[in-house]
């Protein structure tokens, strides 16, 4: 870990664009996940093998979580929520590899994820309720809430970013500090704890993104009553 959690180390440059270590690590994760997915789904069969059973378990668990939060077809949100979960999990657990800093320990990655969730929430809300319906959702339960709801849209995405960044970065820093103070084997329990924290943070990020999208997609307006005869 570098001295400052906000420091960005450039590995190489493409023209005037400096490619940071975070981006390189993300590319590696992206390659592993992409190639792994390609290889794992090469021979899908109705009678699954062990690898396919694990993949189906993951997809089914994601679908069940989506269905428990949003009614309707879970396939609309499966790719986004699943990608967030798998990427953050892989990024958090990449700290187990020596001399690799998890991309989520850098604010740029967490901010990028939060922006994606922010934009996706708005996009899903507009697609589900239309422009006017989506805008009206900010006036619920009353128009007085409009400023607070608008602020909430930003702050909750900001909190997503900060939560993930703080947890992962602090874990990495703690392990780094303990490693510099104690022996080689002392940080292992902390690393195991970091694995748990990474999984929990990935789950929390994905579930919160799902909840935000659900709040934008599903209207909580009371059902219209039939006019009196």
């Amino acid at each position: 870990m570098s001295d400052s959690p906000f420091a960005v180390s450039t590995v190489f440059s493409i023209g005037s664009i400096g490619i940071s270590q975070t981006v390189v690590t993300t590319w590696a994760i992206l390659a592993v996940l992409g190639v792994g997915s390609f290889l794992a789904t090469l021979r899908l069969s109705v009678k699954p093998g062990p690898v396919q059973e694990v993949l189906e378990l993951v997809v089914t668990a994601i679908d069940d979580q989506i269905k428990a939060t949003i009614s309707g077809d879970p396939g609309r949100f499966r790719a986004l929520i699943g990608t967030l979960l798998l990427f953050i999990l892989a990024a958090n657990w990449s700290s187990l590899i020596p001399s690799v800093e998890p991309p989520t320990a850098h604010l740029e990655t967490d901010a990028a994820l939060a922006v994606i969730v922010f934009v996706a929430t708005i996009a899903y809300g507009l697609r589900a309720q239309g422009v006017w319906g989506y805008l009206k959702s900010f006036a619920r339960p009353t128009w007085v809430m409009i400023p607070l709801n608008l602020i909430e849209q930003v702050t909750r995405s900001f909190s997503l970013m900060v939560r993930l960044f703080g947890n992962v970065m602090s874990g990495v820093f703690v392990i780094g500090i303990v490693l510099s103070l104690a022996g080689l084997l002392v940080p292992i329990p902390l690393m195991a704890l970091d694995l748990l924290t990474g999984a929990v943070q990935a789950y929390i990020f994905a579930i919160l993104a799902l909840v935000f999208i659900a709040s934008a997609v599903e209207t909580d307006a009371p059902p219209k009553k039939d006019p009196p005869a």
Partner: protein
Amino acid sequence: MQFDWITFGLQIVNVLVLLAILRHFLFRPVAGIIARRQAETRAAMDAAEKAKSDALKATALAQQEAEKTAAARHDVLTRAQADAEEQRKQLLEAARKEAAAILAAARADAQKTARDAEAETLRRARDLAEAIAERALSALPVPPTVEGYAARLAETIGALPEDRRAALLGGKNLRVISPHPLSGNDRKIIDAALKPFGIAAAEVQIDPALVAGLDLSSSTGTVHNSLTHDLTRISEALKDDHETRP
């Protein structure tokens, strides 16, 4: 604080690229295969449901067939029992008729046998009677009167051995036995015949059982000279002939 906007932008692009990759290579194929399996499972369930329904229908059909078969079996058994009863009655009637015919034939045979036996018996009796009569007639004295019998009596006494004749004549209660009372002429003839043996005016005893003839009897013996004795002797002789015949 340092925030690298280039890294930020690249990370957005990276995550979106990863999203596209995972959507294409992971989530879509896996969800597809799950949906395909669910469809196949539903199809298998539907097929199983249809097979179950078909099996239930087939079971019901088989049940109906079994009931029909049981009813047909019952009918066949009932008809067979009726036929068997009818055949039993017919056989019984035929057996009864046959037995009656056999009985009638046996009775006829028995009657014929009895008639034949009776005829045979009559024939034998006739033959026997003829033989007895023939022998009796041949044994009769000539003439078959008191005179003839007196002469045959004297001849018989004369033929006796001396000792036996003396014993006979010396016995007490010497008498002549006749089947009927004798006339005076008859007594004369008898006395004349017995005179050579020293017998004079012998007492006469009447015994109808002699039928015909004259016997001389005393306490020591009897000289038989009657038709009854002849017939008895002929009968015994015929009996001996019959018993000695093979």
